[in-house]
């Protein structure tokens, strides 16, 4: 029992152990509710819901009616769970920074590369996240929805996506870090 407590309060697990946990969650998602894990799709469902409330005509198209139906879907509820699960994980290792002084930007490496300003991280995060969500929309899923959920069913799209992700990710990191790469 003590051993389990110690393990749970560790900040970083071996990625293999955490990976096994995620693998089991992925299996259970299919077995229990015949769904696949995913994150980016839920944002599109929510965006559709908001869009239909504000501009019903503009959002009354194929995409938001059939491809990514607007509404509170399984994935949206999953996303809420992910949010609190992440908080729980941080809380158990006492690394939860809610309300702490450097809460919004505490990553040393980030500060070394981009500078100490918090607003920079917010701006970069905002526009970077738009790019992420848009790309996920084109590809049909994000790291969890396509690469992991698709990969575990051996869908070719997942491996194409991973290849593309790494090719441009390495290039972007090279450009940002240059000599510090």
């Amino acid at each position: 029992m003590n051993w389990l407590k110690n393990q749970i309060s560790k900040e970083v697990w071996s990625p293999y152990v955490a990976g096994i946990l995620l693998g089991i969650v992925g299996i259970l998602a299919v077995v229990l509710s015949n769904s696949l894990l995913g994150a980016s799709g839920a944002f599109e469902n929510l965006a559709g819901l908001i869009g239909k409330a504000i501009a019903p005509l503009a959002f009354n198209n194929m995409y938001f009616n059939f491809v990514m139906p607007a509404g509170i879907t399984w994935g949206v509820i999953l996303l809420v769970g992910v949010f609190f699960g992440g908080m729980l994980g941080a809380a158990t290792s006492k690394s939860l920074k809610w309300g702490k002084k450097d809460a919004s930007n505490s990553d040393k490496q980030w500060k070394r590369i981009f500078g100490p300003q918090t607003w920079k991280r917010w701006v970069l995060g905002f526009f970077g996240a738009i790019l992420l969500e848009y790309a996920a929309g084109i590809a049909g899923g994000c790291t969890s929805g396509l690469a992991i959920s698709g990969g575990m069913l051996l869908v070719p799209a997942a491996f194409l996506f991973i290849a593309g992700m790494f090719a441009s990710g390495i290039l972007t990191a090279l450009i940002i870090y240059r000599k510090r790469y």
Partner: protein
Amino acid sequence: MNYVIAAFLGLFFGFSLNKAGLTKYNKIANQFRFTDMAVLKFMMTALVVAMIGLYGLRGLGLVTFPTVPATYIVGNLIGGLLFGVGMALTGY
């Protein structure tokens, strides 16, 4: 009932992501610099475990697979390429 399952699974999903350290900028960025392989280790372990479990269960006739993500080569590749830029930039 389905929503309860979703919330519960999401909780464990988020928990495992946090414990693997994938909620941190440096883990994601360093994966693309190949100085920290946690992301790949984590993803591939999850893939292998789920693959074995799901294909085993299907072989026993216990599950049917849900609709799989569609494959459209150009879209998947362009999406992946854009996604990588965003991922290395923001570290999400």
